[in-house]
C-alpha cells in the first residue's frame, strides 16, 4: 500500500467512523452488545453458576450473538449507499474499490473492537475481587473474537453489496451467517452413518463457530487463523468483483 492509498483509506475510515458515531447506530450496537450477552452470561449460566474465573461461556455464545449484531451494523454498508444513490458518487471519487472497502471494513471492525473492549470490566473486576483469571486465555479469546468478527463482517459486506434493500441485506446476512455458524453445531449434535462421517468433517471445517472453539479455550491454532483470514479475503474479493460488475450495470 503506497502513501496515497493509505491516506485515501484513512479518509474513508474517518468518514465511516463519523457515520457510526454521529448517528445512533454505533452507540446502539455497543450498548446492546454489552447488555444482552451480559444478561445471558450472568443470569442464565456463566461465571457465577460455574464458580470459575473464565469467560469461556461468554465467548461460547459470541458466534450466535454476532449472527444478529454484525448484520445489524453492516447491512447499510453498500445497500444504503445504493438506496440513497451515493454509491455512484463514491465511485466517481479518486479512490479505488479496495481503498473504499478496507476503509469501511476497518471502521466496522473498530466498532466491534470498542464493544469487545467495553466487556473487559467483567474479567478485570472479577480478577481483582473474586478469583484470578488466566490472562493468556483471555488474550486468545479476544484475539479470536476480533478475527471471527472480521470474517462475519466480510460475509455481511458481500451480501450487502448484492442487495439494495436494508432489510433484505439484514435478513440474508443473518441467514447465511446462521447457516455457516450452526453447521458446526449440527455436526456434533446429529449422528452420521459411518459412510457419511466425511460430511461431518467438512461441516466442521467450514463452520464459522467451530474454528472459534480453540480461541475460546485459550489456544491459537494455525488452521483457525488461516480459516478466518482466508474466508475474510475470499469474501472481500467477491465483494470487490460485485462492485466492479455494478460499474457496468
Amino acid at each position: 500500500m503506497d502513501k496515497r492509498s493509505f491516506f485515501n483509506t484513512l479518509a474513508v475510515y474517518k468518514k465511516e467512523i463519523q457515520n457510526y458515531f454521529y448517528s445512533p447506530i454505533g452507540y446502539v450496537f455497543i450498548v446492546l452488545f454489552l447488555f444482552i450477552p451480559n444478561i445471558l452470561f450472568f443470569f442464565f449460566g456463566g461465571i457465577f453458576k460455574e464458580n470459575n474465573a473464565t469467560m469461556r461461556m461468554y465467548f461460547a455464545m459470541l458466534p450466535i450473538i454476532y449472527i444478529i449484531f454484525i448484520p445489524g451494523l453492516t447491512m447499510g454498508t453498500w445497500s444504503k449507499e445504493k438506496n440513497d444513490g451515493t454509491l455512484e458518487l463514491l465511485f466517481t471519487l479518486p479512490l479505488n474499490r479496495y481503498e473504499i472497502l478496507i476503509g469501511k471494513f476497518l471502521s466496522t471492525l473498530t466498532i466491534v473492537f470498542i464493544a469487545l473492549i467495553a466487556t473487559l470490566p467483567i474479567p478485570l473486576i472479577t480478577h481483582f475481587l473474586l478469583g484470578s483469571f488466566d490472562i493468556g486465555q483471555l488474550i486468545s479469546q479476544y484475539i479470536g473474537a476480533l478475527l471471527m468478527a472480521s470474517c462475519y463482517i466480510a460475509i455481511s459486506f458481500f451480501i450487502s453489496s448484492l442487495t439494495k434493500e436494508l432489510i433484505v441485506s439484514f435478513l440474508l446476512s443473518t441467514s447465511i451467517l446462521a447457516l455457516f455458524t450452526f453447521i458446526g453445531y449440527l455436526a456434533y449434535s446429529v449422528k452420521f452413518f459411518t459412510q457419511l462421517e466425511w460430511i461431518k468433517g467438512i461441516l466442521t471445517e467450514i463452520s464459522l463457530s467451530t474454528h472459534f472453539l480453540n480461541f475460546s479455550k485459550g489456544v491459537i491454532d494455525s488452521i483457525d487463523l488461516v480459516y478466518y483470514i482466508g474466508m475474510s479475503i475470499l469474501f472481500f474479493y467477491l465483494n470487490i468483483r460485485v462492485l466492479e460488475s455494478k460499474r457496468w450495470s
Partner: protein
Amino acid sequence: MKNNDKKIDKIKSYKMETWLISSLFIAIMIIIIFVITKFFYFRFDLTKGNKFSISKPTVELVKKINNKLIIKYYYNDNCREHVGMSKVVQYINDLLKEYKNYSKGYVEIISEELSTQRDREKLDELESKGLSYKSLSEASAGEARLSQGMSGIIINYEGKESVIPQIFTDVGFEYLIDKEIKKIINDNNANIGLILAYGNKSFENEYSYLKQILESEYSKTTIINSGENIPTDINVIMVIGAEQLTDYDVFKIDQFLMNGGKAFFTTSGINILYNQYSQIALPKDGKLFDLLNHYGITINKNLIGDNESYRAVPRSILEESRYPIWPIITGENINKTNPIVKNFKNLGFFWVSSIDIDEKIKNNTEILLKTTNKAWEKKDRMELGLDNYKYPIEQGDKQFNIACAFKGSLESYYKGKEIPKNENENIKYELGRKDSGNTQLVVISNDMFFENSILDSRLVTQSEINLLINSFDWLTEDLSLIQIRDKKKFLNELDKVKPNTKQFDTRKNIVIAVSTYIMPFLIIAAAILINLLRYSRRKKILEEYKK
C-alpha cells in the same frame, strides 16, 4: 450507439467470466492453504501451564501409534448437570481432541453423553464392561442434591480393550490416558520382579496394595520367592527388606544386576518390634547388606530422628505429639535435578535408617533425599513409644542420607567365588556368570511405607506412591510419564472470597453492575456528549457563516 452497447455487453460478459474464474481460483487457493496448514501445523497454547496442550512425551507416544486406536469417552447427563463435574467433562473432551490432532489420523475420539433415563441399556452394558458410578453431591440454594455420575473411558486397539472405570478429576488425566495407551500398544516394556525379604510378610497380605499399584502401572509383575531364579524377561526387581534372603538369593540378585538388570531396594537397617509393653527397634541382619556394602552403599543399623522436620502424631482431637523418628523430607533436601524426586514438595518416612555412600561410587551416585542438618541417630536401644519423644531429648546437628540412585558399572560380589548352594535343590542357576556389569540402583532406607497398614492409615500420600513409580520409570529409562504424573489441577475457581456469603454477593453485584449497567450508561453519556459537542460546533460554524 448499438456498437457501444455491443462493446459494453462484451466487456460485461468478459468481466463475468473473469469474475467466476478468479473466484474459483481464490476458493481453490484457500483449500490448498488449508491442506498445507494441516502439514505445517502450529499452535500456541496461551493458557497458564499449557492447560490445553498435551505434553511432549504424550505427543511422542501418540506419534508411535501406527494402527487405529479408538478412545471412547462416556459420561452420563448427571455429570454434565453437576457444576464441578461438567468442567471436568469439558476438560477431558478438550484434551482428547489434542490426542487426535497429533496422531496422524490414527487416533479416533468418540465422546458420548448418555441419558440416565433413555440410555439405560447402554449404561448397563458399559457397567458390565467395567465402567462404574460415583456419587456426586452438590449443594445449591441450601439444598443438597445427590446423583450417580458415570464418567469413564474405553480404549480399543488391535482387538484389545482397556478400561478406565472412573474419571472424576482433571488432575493427572493425561497421565492416566498415557499409561493405558502405553499398556495397550505395548510401549511399556517394564516387567517387574518382586522379592520380599521382610519378616514373615507376604504380597498377598501385608503388601497386596503395593502389588495392586504395580500391576495397574506395568505390563507384568512377578513374585519371585526365595530359591527361585529371576525370570529372564524381568528387567527390574524390587527387593523389600533384607533379612530373609539366602546366599543363593543374594547371588541371583548380584548376577541379575551384572547382566544389566536394575533394582529398587527398600530396606532399613532396623527391625521394628511391638509387644504389649513396649515398641522398640533392633539392628537388622541380612546378607543383602553385605551385597550393597560391597557395591559401595551402606545401610546403617540406626534410627534417624529429625528435630526440624517430622510428622506429628495425633494423640487426641486436640493434641498432637512430636515424633521426630517419622522424618519428613522437604525443600532443598530433595534433589532438584533427579527426575525421580525433583517434582516433590515433601515426602514422609517411618522409622528410617541412614545411607552412606563409598568414595568409589560417589561420582555415579546421586543422593535423592536427605534429612535437615538438625537430625540425630540412635544406635543402641531404640525406643519407639510416643512418650519418649514428647520433649526434645536428642541434640540434632547432623544431616543423613535417606535415599540414593546409582548408575554405572559394578563389580560382582561373587567374583572368584563359588555359586552358593540353593536350598531349593530342584532349581539350578542357568544364566551365565559375569564378574562385572552396568546397572542402575535406587536405594531407600525404609521398608515400611508401602505396607498395607501404613497405606490404609492414610499416612502415605500420592507423593510417596509416585516415588515408587518414578523410581521404576527411572530404572526402566522411561521418563516420559514422570513429567506428567504431577500435572496439577487447572480450574481457576472464584476463591478470593468464600462463595454464598454476603461478601461474595456484594462483590458479584459490583461485577454485574459495572459491566452490565454502568458501562452501557457511560456509552450513552459519551454519545450525548459527543453529539452535543458536534451540535454546538455546527451551530458555531453556521453562525460564523451567517456573519
